[in-house]
């Protein structure tokens, strides 16, 4: 009846996950109870859960990512404490628990923090920057988000029901095969990634189509803001790479569930094939994450320097070059596995070549700043912090791309330091910059600058204190994933890393405080212009938060930095505005399809993990029924009448004109 599931699945003997899980459950129930008692449920259901508005979905993606960042961060804190105290001692974590923690930390940070952050950011901003009303497939967008949430839910369920994988974040066979990992940990891992992977693919298809087919009048490719370009590149990578992940995990699951022999030691299976396949996805994944961050930096640097982006076309070229080359370097992840010098040399050179377009980008940002009127607002701080940090990460990356050096550094703490250096310094700093930059657009009020700056400085210094020691420990020969160790020379560095982790935690607290303080002071921080930073691209042309239809008219674009040009034009015309005729706008209707899909996917995923076959069948039938019901809808769109559009747009314009004339009077 319940497959492999029984009471032994709940870790009554392990206090840490049980208490953590208990606290989380209490928290969730408290929030749910508050929502229900206060009567917010209908609002949540109509305005958020069933919403197909790209802005709402983007916000929900980022909310999910923020919550999971706290979860992945707690894992990181536990690991740093463990390694700081486990010199010639067992530390406070039992080995199998420690192994679950580092696997969960990697999985969560990549799939449920970084991915939803960048996808959420792209969802929120790209249609606005393109001057259109929504993404290409709004309902599908909602499905994609909710499937990602399902994956996150399953990973967190493993905390209290069963266990998580102990195999590292990529579950290499044969360790992840049934023989060596007989528990449900790898199944939790594989099914949650399979389900959220479908969500990611859907988002990728959606955004590629949006950028290529939905652009406002005059927005030719070379008029698109840089963030749209990096979004395009990143989503092309998603569409090309995520099916590889799906296929690879499917093979692993077939091995585990049906006794197939893709990667087993017996009957001719080939586990090196897993390495090749997983990294053919995994390496582009790095660029899927970092390219959108590059786009954010381009927007931020140009806006806060008051200049158009330097070398726009070379930036486009560099983006697309990275997009292509990132598929040709995957083998550098296993130089040490005996592919031979020729193969290693080719992949080593290809890996180093990526530094060229990346260098082009860095120089372009520097030249954009050169001679500009730089304002060091929080987003700009994150961007400059990124440039410094990312250069260090890039240089150590070139170092490990040299096969002989890699033979020394492979699987060492040096490598751990390197990829945290690029992922935190690149992706996380990027989404923080974007978060500060676009928050006023999404919510209509700015974030508190003082707390934001504090958050930056603590995170920035905390990052260096944590990860620079790891480089040194790696040079001293410390390998990754150590549960405890006996080498005295490593100890001080582990100690410093733990201190750095504490500083990073203060940074996180500042970030939370910033939100709390800003929400409390939202009236003073209100952004009435829709353009708080004196921005350059079209998202600043509409009000903050934008109306559901984004733009009353499709804006007419005549060049790069479309909104900047509009502003100049308006100044020349002395703000004279010809009266225009408003038209009805057709918008997609809300739909619970995404939520219902995720509901069935959650049950099905859980049932598959625990081999509860009747529930699998029920879930499958439910999913098909959802599909048919969705297909059967007669009215998937509604009309916003021209009068209403006119009222909203006129009041926005009025607000803006008042502000401008007030500024003129001063």
């Amino acid at each position, binding site marked *: 009846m319940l497959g492999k599931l029984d009471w032994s699945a709940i870790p009554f003997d392990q206090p840490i996950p049980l208490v953590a899980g208990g606290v989380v459950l209490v928290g969730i129930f408290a929030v749910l109870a508050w929502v229900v008692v206060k009567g917010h449920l209908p609002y949540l259901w109509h305005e958020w859960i069933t919403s197909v508005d790209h802005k709402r979905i983007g916000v929900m993606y980022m909310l999910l990512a923020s919550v999971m960042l706290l979860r992945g961060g707690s894992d990181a804190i536990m690991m740093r404490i463990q390694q700081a105290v486990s010199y010639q001692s067992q530390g406070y974590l039992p080995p199998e628990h420690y192994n679950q923690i580092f696997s969960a930390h990697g999985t969560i940070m990549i799939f449920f923090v970084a991915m939803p952050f960048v996808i959420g950011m792209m969802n929120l901003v790209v249609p606005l920057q393109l001057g259109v009303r929504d993404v290409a497939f709004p309902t599908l967008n909602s499905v994609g988000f909710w499937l990602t949430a399902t994956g996150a839910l399953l990973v967190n369920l493993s905390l209290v029901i069963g266990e998580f994988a102990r195999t590292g974040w990529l579950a290499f066979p044969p360790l992840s095969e049934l023989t060596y990992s007989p528990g449900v940990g790898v199944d939790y891992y594989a099914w949650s990634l399979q389900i959220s992977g479908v969500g990611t693919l859907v988002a990728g298809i959606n955004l590629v189509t949006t950028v290529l087919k939905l652009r406002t009048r005059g927005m030719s490719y070379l008029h698109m803001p840089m963030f749209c370009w990096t979004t395009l590149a990143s989503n092309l990578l998603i*569409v090309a790479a995520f099916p590889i992940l799906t296929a690879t995990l499917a093979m692993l699951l077939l091995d585990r569930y049906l006794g197939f022999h893709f990667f087993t030691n017996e009957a001719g299976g080939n586990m090196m094939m897993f390495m090749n396949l997983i990294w053919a996805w995994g390496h582009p994944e790095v660029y899927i994450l970092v390219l959108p961050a590059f786009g954010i930096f381009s927007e931020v640097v140009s806006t806060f320097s008051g200049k158009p982006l330097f070398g726009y076309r070379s930036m486009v070229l560099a983006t697309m070059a990275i997009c292509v080359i990132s598929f040709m370097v995957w083998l550098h992840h296993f130089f040490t596995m005996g592919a031979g010098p020729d193969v290693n040399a080719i992949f080593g050179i290809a890996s180093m070549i990526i530094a060229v377009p990346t260098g082009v980008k860095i120089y372009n940002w520097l030249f954009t700043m050169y001679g500009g009127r730089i304002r060091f607002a929080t987003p700009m701080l994150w961007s400059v912090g990124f440039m410094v940090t990312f250069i260090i990460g890039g240089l150590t990356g070139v170092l490990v791309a040299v096969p002989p050096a890699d033979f020394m550094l492979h699987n060492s703490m040096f490598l751990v330091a390197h990829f945290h250096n690029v992922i935190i310094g690149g992706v996380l700093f990027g989404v923080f910059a974007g978060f500060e930059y676009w928050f006023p657009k999404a919510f209509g009020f700015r974030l508190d600058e003082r707390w934001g700056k504090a958050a930056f400085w603590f995170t920035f210094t905390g990052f260096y204190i944590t990860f620079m020691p790891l480089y040194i420990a790696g040079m001293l020969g410390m390998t990754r994933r150590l549960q405890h160790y006996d080498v005295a020379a490593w100890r001080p560095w582990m100690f410093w890393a733990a201190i750095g982790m504490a500083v990073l935690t203060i940074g996180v607290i500042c970030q939370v405080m910033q939100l709390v303080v800003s929400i409390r002071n939202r009236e003073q921080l209100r952004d009435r212009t829709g353009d708080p930073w004196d921005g350059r691209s079209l998202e600043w042309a509409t009000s903050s938060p934008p109306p559901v239809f984004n733009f009353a008219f499709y804006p007419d674009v005549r060049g790069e930095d479309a909104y900047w*040009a509009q502003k100049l034009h308006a100044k020349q015309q002395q703000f004279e505005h010809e009266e225009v005729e408003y038209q009805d706008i057709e918008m997609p209707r809300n739909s619970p399809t995404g939520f219902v899909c995720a509901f069935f996917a959650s049950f099905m995923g859980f049932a598959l993990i625990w081999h509860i076959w009747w529930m699998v069948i029920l879930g499958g039938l439910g999913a098909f029924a959802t599909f048919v019901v969705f297909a059967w809808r007669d009215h998937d769109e509604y009309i916003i009448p021209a009068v209403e559009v006119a009222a909203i747009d006129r009041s926005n314009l009025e607000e803006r004109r008042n502000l401008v004339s007030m500024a003129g009077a001063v």
Partner: protein
Amino acid sequence: MALTATYGHAQADPHHLGRAVEHLGPAPKRIVTAYGFWVFLLSDIVMFSCFFAAYAVLVGQTADGPKGSEIFEQRNVAIETVCLLLSSFTCGMASIAADVRNRFWFYLGMAVTCVLGLAFLTIEFREFADLVSRGYGPSRSAFLTAFFSLVGCHGLHVTAGVLWLLTMIAQVFAKGFRADILRRMMCFALFWHALDIIWVAVFSVVYLLGGAP
């Protein structure tokens, strides 16, 4: 300033082609839907290519089990291929019928497509069942693992296609040739033809190359 210079020009004809090549705004829905579906199909083909790669890597790993030439029956495969290629033709006829809003030919085309698809699936299922009953199931060797997965993955896609096909018939029956239903029909047709293309690759790589002694 560079900006004021580019503004105003509008760069309507940057390559001096003698006509304006300005971007005209968002594409119509039909184009957007078909385009998005094409992108999906490409990603699906990437997934298939992984199974093809796995097959290529594992084809020699028979673990003292049978080789391809010992278990493939060319006659069966020929019939399967004919079924599937013909079904693509009838699917095309159904698409044309939908375009000219002819219900009779639409139903007929879809029904024949469905029958041919089911015939394909039946033959494939019998081939699989026969192999398993002889002890040559997918867990016998890495070669058989790769074979069953690649061919089975295509078979699963055809099954999904048949389900979708039946839903399409029901939709046209209940709602007629509405614009959104025609868009779905277009996606279905693309899907079905793509399965055909993948089958041609399966047929060549697995059965023709693997069938040679």
